[in-house]
């Protein structure tokens, strides 16, 4: 009898739990405005975009990854901004364009005064002043903010300000046209002084929630999960049609694709051409394969062990001596078919590579080889070039040897070729490059290593070929700076940008000259010549310019702003504040709201109550049987 009462008690308890749960759900829904059993928020329009990228930091003082910029393009201003085609945005009436309305430059191009826009407000109601601008630039300079301080190295001393006149002024160490306002070079987001001056360690500040001047502000960041941005109540530009922006971090692209199909994600970036292709056939989904300033290369050790020592460089490493010969490097370049690589490795997307300034760059900056300048894919010509320069296969093993009078006569052209384990395209490309090189009598031994290990190998100079990539700024200055002599890894242990150990005094002189040239056209001439020299010297074989794969739900949102036109990034990732954030809008009423998915909360209560009851019944039943057995 007692056990029967216990059973009854279990059911009563289970029912009580269920009732309590129902009441709690009702209260929770009332509290949050959630609708329906699956939750969801009322009327709030939310745009959700996703990728597999984790931000490095939401603080412009510390962040450096491409994904970080999406949060800054929605929240901060630049001084001189890019337009949709990466030219200078000169529309000073546009609240989203750069803060500078006029640039005064001295005749010697060493003194600058920037006149600033009035009326821009921070999201906490404070006005954005010249003092904020000067403070930010000095903050970046004084705290060695990794990315932004790069654009301020020419500034001599502190930046000063005049709040009355709403101007800032500074001088430079040497003449330069980079601050003339004719190019958008200074990639420095302006921060609120009244927030950052209170911080003991501003570079380590998480910046969540932030105070911004753009249409949105960052309100929440959960590492590995999402970033939430909400409207800035003091934004002076057009009212955004979206109340909330959410960036979702997926950990694999298959799941992200499912998220787009299920409507959890409105817009997504992919790196896999296969997934991108599969998404193109789905209903209500639009896709765009665009290009961004980015390239992947095979770099050569042009002579880390054989170059002359100087004040900052000590020869080191054991690179193959044949690669000091430009003819060998050119022959290798001729044996790499960039078109096949983009077709086969990138699934037909991306662009075949040639020079170190990508097609998506500031207008006029890029040089393209034409006619005789082109180093074509031609295996026969490549083999002939090696033959003509004395690299012959004297022992008939299929591998050529170095000629008499060279640095190491008779040494076979057998190269170590490093690719990166965490970059599949780098590994895939080697499957094509290796047999091409074999056809011209070069043995390439492919080794797959981690990025960390390859970084060490490059600094040690203990490689012959390697595969890696860069994401340069739209302005070519940064990309060109990487290959000057002083950027070589100096001693076998210390890092340097110039990973091919390219050193050409003529190139270095031109780099300094282009920095000092104010007239953009004159500057582009020098920049073009530098690209031509680097291309002909073949320190890099640029394999391709990377694609950016965008996919979005066309039945949910419209109004994307592609940068650069016509095929680039539909979320306008260069500059700030980007107009895409107030131009995207739901396609129709009722679309674009956040909804939770899954089993309704009430059903969960039932499931849990059921499990409790069943468990209780089993336990009680077993006890009852045991008692009977013992009796």
């Amino acid at each position, binding site marked *: 009898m007692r056990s029967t009462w216990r059973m009854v008690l279990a059911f009563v308890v289970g029912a009580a739990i269920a009732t309590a749960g129902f009441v709690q759900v009702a209260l*929770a829904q009332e509290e949050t405005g959630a609708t329906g059993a699956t*939750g969801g928020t009322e009327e709030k329009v939310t745009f959700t975009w996703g990728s597999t990228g984790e931000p490095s930091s939401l603080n412009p003082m510390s962040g450096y990854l491409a994904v970080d910029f999406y949060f800054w393009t929605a929240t901060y201003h630049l001084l001189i901004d890019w337009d949709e085609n990466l030219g200078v945005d000169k529309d000073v009436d546009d609240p989203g364009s750069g803060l500078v309305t006029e640039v005064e430059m001295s005749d010697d191009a060493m003194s600058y005064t920037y006149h600033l826009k009035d009326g821009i407000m921070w999201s906490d109601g404070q006005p954005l002043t010249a003092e904020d601008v000067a403070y930010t630039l000095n903050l970046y300079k004084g705290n060695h903010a990794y990315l932004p301080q790069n654009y301020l190295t020419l500034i001599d001393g502190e930046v000063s300000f005049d709040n009355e006149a709403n101007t800032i002024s500074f001088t430079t160490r040497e003449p330069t046209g980079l601050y003339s306002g004719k190019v958008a070079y200074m990639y420095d987001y302006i921060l609120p002084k009244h927030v950052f001056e209170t911080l003991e360690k501003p570079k380590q500040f998480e910046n969540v929630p932030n105070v911004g001047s753009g249409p949105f502000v960052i309100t929440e960041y959960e590492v590995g999960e999402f970033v*939430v941005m909400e409207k800035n109540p003091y934004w002076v530009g057009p009212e955004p049609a979206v109340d909330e922006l959410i960036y*979702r971090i997926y950990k694999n692209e298959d799941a992200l694709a499912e*998220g787009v199909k299920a409507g959890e994600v409105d817009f997504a970036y992919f790196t896999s051409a296969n997934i991108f292709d599969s998404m193109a056939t789905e209903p209500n989904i639009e896709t765009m394969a665009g290009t961004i300033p980015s390239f992947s290369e095979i770099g050569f050790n042009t002579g880390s062990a054989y170059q002359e020592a100087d004040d900052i460089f000590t020869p080191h490493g054991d690179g193959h001596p044949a690669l000091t010969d430009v003819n060998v490097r050119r022959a290798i370049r001729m044996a790499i078919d960039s078109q096949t690589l983009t077709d086969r490795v990138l699934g037909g997307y991306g662009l075949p590579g040639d020079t170190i300034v990508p097609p998506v760059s500031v207008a006029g900056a890029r040089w393209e080889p034409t006619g005789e300048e082109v180093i074509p894919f031609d295996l026969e010509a490549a083999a002939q070039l090696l033959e003509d320069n004395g690299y012959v296969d004297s022992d008939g093993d299929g591998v050529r040897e170095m000629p008499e009078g060279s640095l190491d006569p008779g040494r076979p052209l057998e190269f170590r070729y490093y690719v990166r384990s965490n970059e599949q395209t780098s590994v895939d490309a080697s499957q094509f490059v290796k047999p091409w090189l074999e056809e011209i009598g070069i043995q390439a031994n492919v080794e797959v290593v981690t990025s960390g290990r390859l970084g060490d190998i490059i600094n040690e100079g203990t490689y012959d070929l390697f595969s890696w990539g860069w994401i340069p700024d739209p302005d070519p200055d940064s990309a060109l700076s990487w290959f000057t002599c002083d950027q070589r890894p100096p001693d076998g242990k210390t890092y340097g*940008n110039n990973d091919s150990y390219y050193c050409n005094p003529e190139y270095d002189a031109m780099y300094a000259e282009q920095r000092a040239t104010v007239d953009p056209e004159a500057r582009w001439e020098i920049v073009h010549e530098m690209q031509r020299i680097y291309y002909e010297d073949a320190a890099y074989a640029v394999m391709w310019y990377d694609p950016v794969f965008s996919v979005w739900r066309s039945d949910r949102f419209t109004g994307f702003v592609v940068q650069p036109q016509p095929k680039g990034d539909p979320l306008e990732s260069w500059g700030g504040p980007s107009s895409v954030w107030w131009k995207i809008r739901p396609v129709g009423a009722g679309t674009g709201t956040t909804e939770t998915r899954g089993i309704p909360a009430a059903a969960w209560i039932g499931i849990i109550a059921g499990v409790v009851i069943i468990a209780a019944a089993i336990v009680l039943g077993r006890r009852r049987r045991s008692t009977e057995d013992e009796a």
Partner: protein
Amino acid sequence: MGTRGYLAGKILQAFLTLVFVLCFNFFLFRVMPGDPAALLLRGTSAFNPENVEQVREDLGLNESLPKQFLIYMADTAQLNFGESFFLRGKPVNEVVADKIWPTVLLVGTSTIASIVLGLFIGIWGGWRRGTVADYGSLTFTLFVYAMPEFWFGILVLMAFGGGVGPFPSIFPTGGYETPGADLTGFAHAADVLNHMVMPFFVLTVAYLGEYAIIMRNSLTDVMADDFVTTARAKGVREKQVLWRHVVPNALLPTWTLTMLSLGFVFGGAITIEYVFSWPGLGWLTVQAIEAKDFALLQALFLIFSAAVIIANLIADITYMYLDPRVRAA
């Protein structure tokens, strides 16, 4: 050696192992190739020797190795694990604390579920040795044991996340909660449960095989023992033979495995966390390894090691009560 001596020995052993792990952790990650400062910046416009040096300074890597070791030991003694490299200065304690709960929630519950289900299947099949039920349950458990959980996870995700053919799209495709939904109370709990359903199901199915197989084999061994025959000869009912005599003895070998599995809960489930974008410690560990985030790695591996050592200690101590022969030894 009495009970006290046995206990003291085990605790001392656990403590010394933990101290060894603490020291080992410091050196283990520093022999990995690559400089974390350069890894952080490579491929970006911020990558130059001055910045790399600045990052080294910011991360405290410019100090000599012995000094770094002393700082590490002193800080760890105060449970201060420093600041994460790849999360740009966020305190490691905060980063780890954020991810421990989702990890324990998912991996802990699915481990317990797989233990309960696995043991039950093992008992059910083993007790019916040689029958269709035995062969059926053994085939099933061997299949799920051998099945790659990543593959199974993707199938479940496609079927019930995105929806394929007859399978409806029901559950969220990733994450721990719906961002921006601002839910509280039970509505929030239900949202988390909805995110957890698929990874929980996959992990439970993937893990239960090993418990079922071990339990079945252990059970069939015990079933052949003399005391079981004696019990039957005394006329004890079959159910009682099973639950009173066979199962308690057959559970002993699975006890260590169970305790160790619970110790490994903190290590997360890397593949499943990747498939379902679950923000757990497994994913965090991979990120930390890729970025050579020494500070984060040291904390994570200490937690993982401590959990296993403590679970092992508990197993040893409880074994003493479960099996009196241990005390007598």
